[in-house]
């Protein structure tokens, strides 16, 4: 027992100060791909997750990156597209609207700026969530719902409780029963075999409640997509409040998304920065 105490004291404090202090990911970290307007952007077929699409608008080639689908594999930033795409280091990608995660770039003309998103898609959602912020902003109890993930997102949620991230310091905790929860964090694309359990768990949570889709599969179906055994994303079954891209999102990215969900942080306008 004494040895345990001595070990614990010797270890000291290992907890991060994120989000009070920024978290700087390592050099090789693959965050949101950055598409350079006016460059020879890769064709959609390059992306194994179907995150890239293109269309012609007034004779110009527009390329759209859907961050909700992206699995951050880095393939679109490899030879021969290294000049057109770089893997950015941005990981605070959570958004309230699925559309906010679509970044549109004009491929063949450097003078045309990246298209912005619709005027302010966030405002409506933010208004709707002010009640959530008032009720749940300081103390949020979440139920984890695995809707058919590969377990990577689940392990990152479990990591939020480790001594390094320790989200209880932020008033966030995970609870065993949906009846004790203020919302769900959902991982996975909603498999056919879990659809009933997903609906019943959600129904057992009292209002107001938040739904946070964690990771590419939950946010969009990801690389699993839609098929005989997969619904293709949580929003096909439940109303989603916040989408957190990543494959899986790193723990800080999940913390960011949870704080966005309760209005303690605001989602950044990714598309506008594009």
């Amino acid at each position, binding site marked *: 027992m004494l040895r345990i105490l001595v*070990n614990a004291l010797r270890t000291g404090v290992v907890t991060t100060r994120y989000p009070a202090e920024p978290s700087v990911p390592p050099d*090789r*970290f693959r965050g949101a791909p950055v598409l350079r307007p006016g460059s020879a952007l890769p064709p959609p077929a390059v992306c194994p997750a179907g995150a890239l699409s293109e269309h012609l608008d007034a004779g110009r080639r527009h390329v759209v990156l859907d961050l909700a689908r992206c699995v951050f594999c880095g393939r679109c930033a*490899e030879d021969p597209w290294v000049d057109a795409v770089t893997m950015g280091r941005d990981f605070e990608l959570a958004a309230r609207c699925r559309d906010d995660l679509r970044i549109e770039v004009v491929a063949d003309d450097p003078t045309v700026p990246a298209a912005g998103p619709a005027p302010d898609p966030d405002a409506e959602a933010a208004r709707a969530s002010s009640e959530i912020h008032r009720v749940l902003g300081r103390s949020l109890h979440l139920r984890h719902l695995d809707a058919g993930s590969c377990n990577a997102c689940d*392990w990152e949620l479990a990591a939020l409780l480790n001594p390094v991230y320790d989200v209880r310091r932020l008033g966030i905790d995970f609870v065993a029963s949906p009846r004790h929860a203020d919302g769900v964090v959902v991982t996975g694309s909603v498999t*056919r*075999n879990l659809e009933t359990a997903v609906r019943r768990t959600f129904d057992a949570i009292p209002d107001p409640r938040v739904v946070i889709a964690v990771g590419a599969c939950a946010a969009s179906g990801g690389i*699993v997509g839609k098929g005989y055994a997969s619904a293709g994303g949580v929003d096909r079954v439940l109303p989603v409040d916040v989408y957190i891209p990543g494959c*899986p999102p790193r723990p800080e990215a999940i913390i960011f998304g949870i704080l966005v969900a309760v209005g303690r942080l605001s989602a950044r306008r990714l598309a506008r920065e594009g």
Partner: protein
Amino acid sequence: MADPALMDALRAGAGGSADADVGPRPSDLTVRLGRAGDLPAVAAVLIGPYSMALATVVATDETATPDGDLKVRYVFEPTAPGAPDRFVTLLISVDAAHPEVPSLTTAVPAANWHEREMQDLFGIVSVGHPDPRPLVVHDGWPQGVFPLRKAFDGSQRVPVEPADEFPHLVAEGEGVFEIPVGPIHAGIIEPGHFRFTSVGETVLNLDARLFYTHRGLEKRMEGLSPLDAFYVAERICGVCSVAHGLGYCEALEQIADVTAPPRARLIRSIALELERLYNHVGDVGNVCAGASFHYGTAAGMRLKERLQQMNERLAGNRFLRGLVVPGGVRLDLSDDLLGVLAVTLQDTLAGLDSLMERIEANPSVVDRLDDTGILQHQAALDLAVAGVAARASGVDRDARRDHPHGAFAGPEPLDLHVVIASEGDAMARVTVRALEARESIRLVGELVRRLEPGPLQVALVEPLPGGRIGISAIESARGEAVHWLRTDAAGRVERYHLRSPSYHNWPAVVLAAETAIVPDFPLVNKSFELCYSCTDR
């Protein structure tokens, strides 16, 4: 090379109606049985005198090819330590109009789930199966719809009909009651349903219903370019990302007839050991959670976190995704990173040793682990159990040695100390895991010493050769995973099948849990630490 005595024995078993060929790899043998009915007799030759075990079962729909049939391949592997790296495939043709084959399950218990899965996904019935309940498809799955048949459109949704009960063994008597647990659990873990039938705390029967995370990934990969399908394979399971990515790549590289360069093979093996390490270290901590030893849980989580942060520095992803790719690796290990690696591993070793000391010096933890959840040696063999669970029950099997891959397949021999224990209880599994983690740290040191400058990738040129099969076996943190891949005439993925170690180990958890009391189930389960997602796919 093919063994003439074995071929004769198999022909005799099949009453002469069997053809043997070398393949898929030069060291392998594929035996076509003229009559499906001979399957049990021929399998008995492999299991009995040749002491082989079932490695995987792969069904394919070849109705659109000139053969116009369904086929089932029962793949066996030797189990004797030091046996050559070989797979023996028994291949039978199945009439699509009357898709029936004899069941092997009574004689080869490891065939149980394979046969049930084949019935659900292909409509191939294993006649004589003792428990033919649906396995993979749940809740009102329509009769006669088989999603892995080629005629089935995989993008089509099959509507759900909620069902409140599933067929399971029901016991009656005074004081007998059922405890339903899951699929949504109290903690942050994967979904599965466990139905305990018990009297007081004593478990009479446990039924594990899995496949909740069945995403249809094998179907999803069909028709894709094998280079694109890799990204799906790498994402079948989070904590097996390296192992499954690598297994897929090695199968694909066989088809393409290329070998990853030496430096890439070393880096692949380093990644595989790092994956084993963060899993094993975290799993030792998680067992402490099952025994309510919270210091141990926190210490394990902290050590694991440090390793995952290092993963992110090495690979740009905390699960080491994006390092292994078809043809080699896409990132190098610079001297700076090797320095970080060395320091992190040294600290991990010290931390793990201290954690194990604390566990072993704590009678209340040891008491929970000792003699809890015993898996008998014979049961481990019968179920073809893999990995830590098998080795803790005295089965001397490790795919790194038995089916060399990564750097183990290189020209220079690489020593591996395979850790074995005989008790088969939770304590043995924890101890084996901790010793294997130490061995991984030693191996990484050895692999790093062997790194020589050189290329990281060979090119895989599309289209890939058509109509070829690749097979590989990788020792993941959970045990041996067997990958089977075949390309179609255009060089696209025609069929991919993964048999994960957890697939064979889940039935063993059930057996072990039946030797324990209900409150010890979390502990027993965590001592096996299996994946749901790579079982369910």
